[in-house]
């Protein structure tokens, strides 16, 4: 057992060596603001989907056109043929207001985080894989460790491993920008100023469908993320993201 790599002494040594909180204050604040906004966007977004639980591809789509896929749920609109004999109450008013307000907070928070991440070197130091890790071999090794749920090395309590780094890069620099883009592509005013926002995606309904699928992938990330935090020690990891205090890691019992 790699007990030596997981002992209290070593992590204390690492903590002393770093002399800094596990997560910088800006990371902690933007992390929780983003989490809060994401949950608000998710709930309000699902409410909006309930008013038309059908998805299409291309430019136009409505109940008279075939759906790419649809959900067998009741709708909050009587015009949608759901097969149910009842219509759910309309929740789109507050849902839309909450959706767009949360989107603004998320975008501004994200912009602050990205600017800070570049300026402070956070991305270079903590997210960009080390030069030695930039190979397919290193990645498959790390992924294998990850999938076997191998115990993390002591250093993992203080920095991200390769799989984490690549996942966070994917979420921060690919999934979030795409979900924002596809959201903007549904704004009739925004696309009047920047038509390529929607034409590059193949049309308004494609943008809506992609917006939904990207949300599904972000939810998948969230579930895996929370599961991993749970496996790594929920209390200590969550406290580290709230107070920044180093995790008092315990030996493997």
């Amino acid at each position, binding site marked *: 057992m790699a007990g030596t790599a997981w002992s209290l002494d070593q992590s204390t040594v690492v903590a002393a060596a770093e002399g800094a909180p596990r997560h910088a204050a800006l990371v902690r604040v933007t992390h929780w603001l983003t989490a809060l906004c994401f949950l608000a966007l998710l709930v309000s977004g699902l409410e*909006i*989907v309930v*008013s*038309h639980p*059908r998805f299409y591809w291309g*430019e*136009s*789509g*409505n*109940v*008279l*056109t075939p759906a790419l896929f649809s959900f067998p749920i009741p709708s909050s*609109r009587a*015009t949608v043929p759901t097969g149910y004999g009842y219509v759910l109450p309309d929740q*789109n*008013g*507050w849902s*839309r*207001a*909450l959706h*767009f*307000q*949360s*989107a*603004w907070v998320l975008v501004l928070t994200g912009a602050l985080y990205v600017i800070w991440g570049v300026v402070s070197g956070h991305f270079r130091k903590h997210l960009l894989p080390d030069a030695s890790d930039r190979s397919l071999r290193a990645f498959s090794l790390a992924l294998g460790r990850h999938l076997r749920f191998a115990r993390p090395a002591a250093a993992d309590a203080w920095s991200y491993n390769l799989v984490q780094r690549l996942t966070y890069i994917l979420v921060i620099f690919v999934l979030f920008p795409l979900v924002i883009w596809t959201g903007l592509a*549904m*704004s*009739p*005013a*925004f*696309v*009047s*100023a*920047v*038509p390529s926002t*929607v*034409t590059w995606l193949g049309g*308004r*309904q494609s943008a*809506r469908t992609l917006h939904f699928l990207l949300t599904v992938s972000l939810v998948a990330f969230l579930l895996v993320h929370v599961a991993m935090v749970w496996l790594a020690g929920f209390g200590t990891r969550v406290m580290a993201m709230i107070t920044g205090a180093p995790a008092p890691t315990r030996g493997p019992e």
Partner: protein
Amino acid sequence: MSAISRRKMITRGLAAAAGLSGLAAAGRIADRYGLLPPDHGGIYGPGETLTYAAQRLITRHSLAREFDRSQISNPPFANEIAPPSDLFKRLQAGGFKDWRLSVEGLVSQPASLSLDDVRRFPVRRQITEIACEEGWSYVAEWAGAPLADVLHAAGILPQARYVVYFSIEKGWWESIDMADALHPQTLLAYAMNDGDLPPAFGGPLRLRVPRQLGYKSVKFINRLAVTDSLKQFGKGLGSASPEGGYAWYAGI
């Protein structure tokens, strides 16, 4: 220790005060440049204001997307929500000959126009998309008189800031700012896809506002009011939508 936390508290208090007065000043400036929507109050006011202000700054002269004839949706979706009133049915029975569109408020020559009067304005045809806040959409060709032409004919007074428009069906009304009212694609539409605009789609007269969601394109228009303030209309939130919990500005 206590000196530091006191200093911290004073700094934070000052920062908060500066933030609040900054916000108030930003609000006044936004209002002066027409960047404050009428429904800017309430917990979702900041989001509505940010969206409206940001989009007004980038969309002042932008045109809604127009499409090829091949992209017209066949069939289009009427989205009929309520059956027409008896008053509407009576006018429909008479071939809409007695339909009147009143133009009132801050205009030098208030008018009451028949459908033929509206048809005498130069016609604009455009193939645009109507997108519902629920998520569905269709593309159609609309033809009609640009709202700007009708307003200019009535003589818009310089203090005009909004145009309020009413459906013949009770409780159905909206308003737009002058940027959208005078926009070349904002039409008093009376025709659709090479025919008269069918009542299911808002005929005989629908205001098409293609840079905003479908709910701003009110059906069965019979009254336009030019105004400098939305306070005296309904609950003063700008239109029926915010009274029902929806955003006044639907450019999203």
